[in-house]
């Protein structure tokens, strides 16, 4: 985290693996924020979902391969985010980034909430769209109940 604070936003070098709906949206947001972004995906067509003003690099390759990560200059990265639709791929990439290349901040997308514990044990930060959505649904429902009670 120290590294992140020291640098200007425009100097932050962020690697995003997976250019699906989540990855492409995140990469576009970060790029608009002024970060230097590299996004990696096996499918060249996936890059078309990036916003028009995306100002980063795209690499058409498999992000799980060490050589690809090195081409992306992972050793220079301040942040790596693994957002593929495959939990196993995400966890593997996150571990390589954290253990081998000592990337200061590594975040992985987690689909299956049951695996949350494994990630915790490996000390990898996760974001689970499933859990986040469930919580949000719960919040809305609870709020609606309160409204009904108040109305009564």
């Amino acid at each position, binding site marked *: 985290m120290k*590294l992140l604070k020291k640098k200007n936003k*425009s*100097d932050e*070098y962020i690697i995003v693996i997976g250019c699906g709906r989540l990855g492409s949206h995140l990469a576009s947001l970060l*790029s608009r924020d*002024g970060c*230097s972004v*590299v996004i990696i995906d096996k499918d060249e067509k996936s890059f078309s979902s990036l916003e028009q*003003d*995306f*100002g*980063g*690099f*795209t*690499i058409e*390759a498999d992000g799980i391969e060490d050589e690809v990560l*090195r*081409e*992306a*200059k992972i*050793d*220079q990265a301040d942040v790596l985010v693994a957002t593929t639709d495959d939990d196993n791929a995400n966890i593997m990439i996150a571990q390589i980034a954290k253990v081998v290349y000592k990337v200061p901040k590594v975040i992985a997308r987690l689909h299956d909430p049951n695996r949350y514990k494994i990630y915790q044990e490996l000390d990898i930060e996760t974001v689970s769209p499933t859990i986040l959505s469930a919580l949000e649904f719960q919040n809305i429902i609870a709020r609606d109940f309160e409204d009904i009670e108040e109305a009564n």
Partner: protein
Amino acid sequence: MAHKLLIVDDETNIRMTLKQCFSSDEYELDIAVNGDEALAKLKANQYDLALLDIRMPGLTGMEVLEKVREESIDVDVIMMTAYGSVEKAVEAMKLGAVDFIGKPFTPAQIREIVENVLSRVDLIEEDLDGYNDNLQFAKKKIVEKDYKVGEEFLKKAVSMGVDKPEPHNLLGVIAEYKGQIERAQKHYRAALALDPTYTPARSNLERSAQYTYSRAKIDLGDNEVAKKEK
């Protein structure tokens, strides 16, 4: 005085990245979106440095570089190579590009390479001070194909930065240019002994040890410069 840079790339996102990297008072930026526009601008205006993408539709970066040399336009050129096409970069160096950088690059890397090239131009032999000056001067000489002087200053750099792998790597590169493969490998090994993580020396050693020896992909280590900052 602000340095005048010409950025040439057909991809919008790379142009935006570079614009962001060099948006300071030190630089005056100009943009070209293809080779033809670049050549027209290079003919019409005086630039200190051009950042040229190798792969472009129409007139490629290589062709622009060739034309620049043919018409002896006075400008330093740094080539930008796409992912997985480093071989081309060596060809470009032969055509007189002063340096090259592989995509993707970090803002720190591209800035450092540009600053180094710009300051290299002003280096005079009598005026060198310290390890980095000597190293940069040696690089300038290598690019000018003056290997003898380059070697001399690399040796000075070795004695000034005894723990630095880069001069050893470059000594290896010169040895290779002279056709002395075994000596080159010794230098690469020396660089690796000082810093096992220094990838240019590793890839040079692996490449030079291949059965089908080729000078393609020779690595001058310019992408490594920004690492030291961490």
